[in-house]
Structures are given as C-alpha cells and as structure tokens.
C-alpha cells in the first residue's frame, strides 16, 4: 500500500498527462498549488481521480474552513479525511 502522499503525487502526474499540463519539478511541501502546473480543471480532475483511488472526497465530505494553498495543506486535508474514514 502506497502512502497517501505518494498516491497524491502519482494521481497529480496522471492528471497532468491526461489534461496536457506540465507539473513543476519538484513539487515541495510549500509549493503553491496554483504554481504546481495544474489549473482549476486539473485540480477538479485530481480530486475526482483521488476519490476513485481512495474512496473519499474531502472537499465534499469535510466542512473545510479554508481552501488549501500549498501542497502540504492539500495533503493535510486528505490525511485528516483518511483518519476520519
């Protein structure tokens, strides 16, 4: 079983290829999501892909106070939702 971070990174790569986006290298913890190379359609696809892979969508299931800005914040939201499953 891959860890959550790796699953998210794999899904990002997959979505980038599918949506003709190019991810920045490397995506670090403090990299801004809007500077990773995915646009809003790309993020929507990423969340949909992760819902397939993981079985949950934190943006629908959790009452998130603020949207994530960085990769670390994005990961933390998925971690929180995974812990609640």
């Amino acid at each position, binding site marked *: 079983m891959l860890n959550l971070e790796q699953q998210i990174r794999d899904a990002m790569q997959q979505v980038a290829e*599918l949506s*003709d986006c190019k991810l920045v290298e490397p995506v670090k913890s403090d990299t801004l999501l809007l*500077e990773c190379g995915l646009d*809003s*359609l790309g*993020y*929507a696809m990423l969340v*949909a892909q992760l819902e397939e892979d993981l079985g949950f969508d934190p943006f629908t299931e959790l009452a998130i106070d603020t*949207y994530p800005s960085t990769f670390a914040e994005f990961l933390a939201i998925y971690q929180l939702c995974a812990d609640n499953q």
Partner: protein
Amino acid sequence: MQSLIHQLINLPTTGVITSSGEHGKVTDLIKNADQIRQHHPQIHQHKIALQYTNLTQFVTALIAFDGWCSEIYLCPPNVSISQNQLIKWPIDVDTDNTDLSVKPLNSTSSDVAHTSWYMSTSGTTGEPRWYPHTFLSLSASTKYSSRLQTLCWALLYQPFRFAGLQVVLQALLSGADLVDVADYEPLAQMAFLKHADVTAVSATPSLWRQLLMTGQLSELTLSHITLGGEIADQSVLDKLKRLFPSAKLRHIYASTEAGVGFVVVDGRAGFPAEWLEDTSLPVALKVSDKQHLLIKPSHQICQTLAQQTDVQGYMDTLDTVQIIDGRVFFLGRATGTINVGGSKVHPEKVEQILLQCADISQAKVYAKKSAIIGELVVADITIIGSANQQNVKQQAFKMCKNKLQRYEIPTKISVVNNIAHDPSGKLNRK
C-alpha cells in the same frame, strides 16, 4: 430610455477603466465614442458585429453604438457571424470603404429609437445562437449612488458574455472604476486586485474557489461580493462570508436567453420558496410539474423563445430545481448541459465525437459533481466486439483532444455493457 452615451454624460462622476495596465478615463472614452460616430457615418442606423479586442476599445464601441446603430452583435473572439449587411468593428483598414465625401453626422441629434444588443450562447451543435436584448433590460439592475461610485470593480468574466457585460455596465453606470483581469491566472489576478485596491468582485463560484486557493484573498477589503454563472453552493458562500463578514454577499441567477435574472442576498444557497408565485417581484417565478424553474420577465421575451413560453408568459429556463424546507435549490440543466466552471458543455456534441471512434458503438456523456469546479464531463461507452478496452479509451481521448475544447473533454471514460435509452430510443439522461 436614454442611450448609454447620454446616461454617462449625465452622471455626476464617471470612473476609470484599467486594462492591460493602461488607464482610460470614461470621460475620454465618451469623447472617443463621439469621434467614432463622426468619422464613420456609414455605421449610423446599421447593424454592427463588434469583435472583442480589448476592454477599453470594447466599451468605447458600446458607448458609440448604443442609440446610434440598429443592432450590435457582441462577438466573442473567433466567432464569426454570417449575416448580410453587418459592418464589422473594428473596421479592417484594408476593406474600409468609408466615404470621406459623406458629411460627418452630428452625433447627438439623430439617435435611433433603440438598439438591440445581441449576445451569443453556444448551441448544441457548437454554432452560436444569438439572443436580442436592449440596453434597458441589460441595465435594469444597475444604479448610481455616491457610495457605489467609490467602488473599484474587478472584471473576471469575459465582457461579451452576459455576466461580464453586467459587471461592465454596473461599473460604468455607477461611476465606479473597473479593472480588467479576465485573461490572467489566479495568482496574477490576485496581484492586480491587490495593486488596484479592488473593493467589488463578481465571479463564478469556481473562480472564487481559485481566488480562495491563492490564500491571499483576505488581503483585499471587499465590500461587494457577487457570484454568478454557476450554482452557488453553501460552502463557498460560507467561506466568503467568514472572510468578509460585513460585505454585501449576493448570488445571481441569470438567463442569457431571457436577459433577466434575480439576486439572492441572504447568504444562503438557492432562493426562498415564497418568491414562487410572488407577483410583486420584477421577475415572476414558478416551478413546473417537471421541476423546471419558470420565469416571467416584465419585458417581452424574444420570438425565438416563444416555444419555451406558456400561455401565461412564463418561460421554461430548463433549469431543474428542488424545494427543501422552504428553499428552492438549483440541481442543474434539464437538457443535460454540463457547467464546467461556468463554461457550458453540450453532451450531444461530445457524444458525436466519441462515436466517430470505429470501436465505440454507444456513448453517453453526463456531469459528475465537483466541489472544485461545479461539474466535470464524464462518459460511458460501449465497445464493439473484442476491441481492447484500453486501446479504445486511448483512441477516444485522442479524438476528443483533437476536436474539443479542453473543458469539453471527458475527464473519465468508462466502458460499460449497456447504455439505457428511453422507450422513444433517446438516451436516458436522467
């Protein structure tokens, strides 16, 4: 009803438009519009196809043409319009046949009675459909006040579409400033919004989510927040309310076809069910047996929409709604049209592309809900015989990439055994 130029001239103050880093005073745009009228007498009382170039030129042309030309077609870039007797604007210098011997007209003395403004929506076949509006109907909700005059609006929508034009007219007619950031990425947009001290923003819920993702939205001092073009969900409304508790938070329902809409100001998704059958509202509303929202504007609906209109004058918006606990919530389009962050996708168009793949026998394209962008396009396909599923999917994606806009491409294609049809043989879109 006064034309746009007359209303602007009569305002106590007018604002400044900033586009591509350049500032243009509306008073100067009025002068330029007057020059256009004088130097191009051949456009007087003619039909104009206004091709979008940039915001300043676009607004100058609107000021020049309203009340002066008989019809204005607001053409998105790359949308051509095939109709005779249309003068294209900006005039191509190579084909300009301005007759310099024609005496310039006095630009204020011979206005046409009223100008029809035509806006396009993309039709099922991809061909644009044009709907007429008037300056009166388009500016019905705009007003001037000394408070509104101090605002600085950001334009995040394309101004030749209904929502964008509303922002442009609101800013112009209230004497406020307007900053065009429509063509930039969210982080660049935020930089412009901060630099210009923008105080009023109108955007789709998806655009608002992107601005929220920048983590910088709280650095603005917003007093007017408007959401439109997509269904506004409670989650995005709540986030904006938390960031800007004293701002006026409004979400707008608009029908480009009917040229009307209404505004919800209580910060809650949907609208109060008591508005249904309330005839004192500017737009009368009811829900049909099929759970479609019906609207009846105070002005006459254009002929094209007659078949969508019942004997009492209510037009079927084809938006499906559900009433829960005294609130009317929007569910989506009855036509199956998918709204990807404000961009409309006709499933039939995507299905036709998928069916061009030799190994695909049936295709059904539909929406998948997305908390990020409203809806995503997904597709089910059935494949012929023993074709390799993975190869067919790859072929289908490739075909879609070549022939569709990015937001129209299915984000997921699933191979299924069977696709349901109605007894009439049509795809079951429910």
